[in-house]
């Protein structure tokens, strides 16, 4: 393997075949559901932002930032995508990025696509978006018009939560079918610690991006759109 490689996701062979197949089936079923449910989020007006968000996440994922000596991290993008374009469309955005990375750039295994999609597109989006809805609902109880700075804080916390939960997805997969003797406790502790740090970077990128879009085009931000059609809490 080249020294200056930019591999970022799970490779093939890290979990055993039955585990890879199980998560591939899960990921495929979930993506079909997302494609169905995304119809409630996507109208012709929302399509350009959704496409651009996927491309933006591909670009930002290339930029690994240092978190510890000899260890880096990069954006996963689940919370960012879900806040901007909705959870179902957002999960599809991340899955498309992962498929392009694996099939075109040989980054992230092919049989590992199921586990990578489960971690970043399903768990990352669900945890990130769940946190965002919870915090945004609380913020709206204080004031009808949530200030942009508060929205940034919500985006930061959601991204941090999404990143740490996505990392725990790997720990679960390793526990189920890990093909190595490294202890589970060691993997869990290491993944948790590094992904809290990565989550801080993810949180900053997510907050800056969400605030910039909300400032320029609040009508496009799904989290803000959604609460206008629903009864305020």
């Amino acid at each position, binding site marked *: 393997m080249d*020294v200056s490689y*930019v591999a970022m996701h799970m490779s093939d062979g890290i979990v055993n075949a039955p585990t890879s197949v199980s998560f591939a089936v899960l990921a495929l079923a979930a993506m079909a559901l997302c494609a169905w449910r995304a*119809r409630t989020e996507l109208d012709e007006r929302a399509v350009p932002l959704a496409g651009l968000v996927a491309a933006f996440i591909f670009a930002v994922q290339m930029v690994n930032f240092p978190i510890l000596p000899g260890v880096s991290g990069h954006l996963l993008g689940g919370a960012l995508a879900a806040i901007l374009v909705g959870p179902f469309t957002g999960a599809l955005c991340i899955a498309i990025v992962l498929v392009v*990375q694996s099939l075109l750039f040989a980054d992230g295994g092919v049989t590992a696509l199921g586990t990578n999609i489960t971690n970043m597109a399903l768990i990352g989006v669900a945890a990130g978006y769940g946190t965002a809805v919870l915090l945004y609902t609380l913020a709206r109880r204080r004031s009808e018009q949530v200030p942009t700075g508060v929205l940034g804080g919500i985006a930061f916390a959601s991204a941090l939560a999404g990143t740490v939960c996505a990392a725990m997805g790997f720990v679960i997969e390793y526990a189920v079918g890990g093909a190595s003797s490294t202890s589970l406790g060691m993997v869990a502790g290491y993944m948790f610690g590094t992904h809290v740090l990565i989550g801080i970077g993810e949180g900053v990128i997510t907050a800056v991006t969400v605030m910039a879009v909300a400032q320029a085009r609040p009508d496009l931000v799904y989290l803000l759109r959604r609460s206008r059609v629903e009864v305020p809490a």
Partner: protein
Amino acid sequence: MTRRRGMFWAIFAAVTLVVAGGVSYFASSSPDGLDSATLQGCQVIENGGEEVLTGDCIAQHASDHPLSASPLADYTVAGHDWSGGLAGVIGVAVTLAVAGAAFWAIARSKSRAARRD
């Protein structure tokens, strides 16, 4: 207003291209949190230009990528050192095309269903 809206898309697209085509050169080449976790217990040693893992770690079980010979493997174009930014721009274009087509199809299937009702 239309001009301002046009500006939003232009800036968003420009930032995306600059990140993929330029900022990506400044990316850390250290393994990320996940890779680093899979390397715990191993030492990476150079052996005739090849990286070899000694010890006992998860990464030893990783197989080579089946498409590692692809012309865009490892975010380069045909393996050229300078080509990371170009690979990034190609990736942005492909992702935009795939995602745009998928989302357009989903949105269109909805408006078709609505017309049937």
